[in-house]
């Protein structure tokens, strides 16, 4: 019994230490951001690579989720003879919740693991120490551009994902339920007010920041040896998914009453 308690205590301790370290890295990244040189080329390079590499996945995921959700809702609405309101019914769930959360867990994890693997192998081969010993700040050189890139790319990808989901929904509505695509489009857009877009974009930004900072932190914390990189990467997937779901819940309680 005491053994179990001690284990729980140990895990809690590890968890607080981990979150503390994560938060400190976040503060340091933001702190060094305005220091010169700004590193515009690093920032744009990271944003482009992260963004472009995630495009195919974001496109595919959103398109299919749009189609699946509209199909499911369509079946349910058709039973009540209410399939004309398909656009109204599906837009909120997709824009406010499904696209941001789904892309954060999939595309966000992918971004974060990429960062962990890259920085982790740099850590293991002492390249991070080498940056410091050659007079540069590794947080400025490595963490800040990646954190920035993920935070900026995620809302852009979510915006793109929304368009894809809408297209997928229009296709299913027209092809399966005989609700014209144009009508679906109008009702879909009609249901949305600015706060829905805002909440989707805010969520996406927060999720992007979470993925970026966890990805970098895990890379920096990688222990010795190449197998350590694999371990750190796996932990990153778990950490990003859990952190995103928790942040999503928090943001939903914030935005829903509005």
């Amino acid at each position, binding site marked *: 019994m005491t053994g179990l308690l001690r284990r729980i205590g140990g895990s809690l301790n590890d968890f607080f230490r981990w979150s503390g370290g994560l938060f400190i890295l976040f503060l340091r990244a933001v702190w060094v951001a305005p220091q010169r040189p700004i590193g515009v080329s690093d920032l744009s390079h990271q944003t482009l690579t992260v963004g472009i590499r995630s495009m195919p996945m974001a496109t595919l995921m959103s398109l299919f989720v749009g189609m699946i959700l509209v199909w499911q809702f369509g079946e349910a609405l058709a039973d009540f003879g209410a399939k004309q309101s398909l656009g109204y019914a599906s837009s909120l769930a997709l824009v406010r919740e499904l696209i941001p959360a789904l892309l954060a867990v999939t595309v966000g994890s992918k971004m974060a693991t990429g960062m962990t693997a890259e920085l982790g192998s*740099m850590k293991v*081969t*002492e*390249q991070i*120490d*080498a*940056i*410091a*010993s*050659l*007079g*540069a*700040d590794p947080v400025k050189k490595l963490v800040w551009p990646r954190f920035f890139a993920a935070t900026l790319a995620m809302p852009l990808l979510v915006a793109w994902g929304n368009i894809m989901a809408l297209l997928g929904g229009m296709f299913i509505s027209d092809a399966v339920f005989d609700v014209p695509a144009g009508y679906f489009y109008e009702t879909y857009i009609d249901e949305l007010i600015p706060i829905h877009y805002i909440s989707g974009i805010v969520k996406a930004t927060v999720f992007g920041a979470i993925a970026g900072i966890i990805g970098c932190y895990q890379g920096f914390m990688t222990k010795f040896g190449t197998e350590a990189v694999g371990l750190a990467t796996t932990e990153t997937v778990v950490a990003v998914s859990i952190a995103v779901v928790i942040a999503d819940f928090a943001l939903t309680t914030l935005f829903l009453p509005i």
Partner: protein
Amino acid sequence: MSATDPPPIISMRGVSKSFGANVVYQGMDIDVYRGETLTILGGSGTGKSVALKLMIGLLRAEEGSVQVNGEEVSEMGAESLRKLRQDLSMVFQGGALFDSMSVLENVGYALTEHTQMSDAEILDRAEECLEMVGLGLSENPDILEKFPANLSGGMRKRVALARSIAIKPAVILYDEPTTGLDPPNCDRISMMIRHLQEQLSVTSVVVTHDIDTAFHVSDRMAMLHEHRFPWVARTEDFRQIRDEVVRDFIVRRTR
């Protein structure tokens, strides 16, 4: 060393360092004097690399003091550390070349960070440094554009050496600079260390397993044993040490 000697450039006093339960140093003392070459010997995994990282402030001691030019390294802020590392550079054991950068960008890295040199000046200096480590452009015309992944192990080691000397530091910490090199290149690197000392009065700390290189380059030698440096002596005196541990180490390596 007598009381009339100039103060050491690097001075470690009562240093303790451990990683969890793994004690690496306990009450360790060592000094490095201006202009000398000090070689550190010691078994694998005993803490030689850790000693260099303590000197350059990549690791912090839990106890004791690590001073460079009379300043406590552990108390330095980001800006002082940056200045320190302009004077003090380190050659990492595994090279630690930046995979995502070409040889030119690697060798010029410290120059872009610390100086206002133009691209052309950096290019000149990079060529000069590569020449010094035996990677001159005459024999290796396309070396500057290559990436670390396309270099052999020995070439990577030498590019790493070139990267560390590019900024003309006053002190260079070499972590096994000749391990894995063929005999001619080993000799070239030892000559380079000597040359830098004689021509530019560079202070060097060399970690090595290679006793021949050690005897060739050092003014003084230190042997790491049981978390300390119990034996530190001028090279000619070091050869005379009769202690079993030291003899074993020297003889086994030269046999």
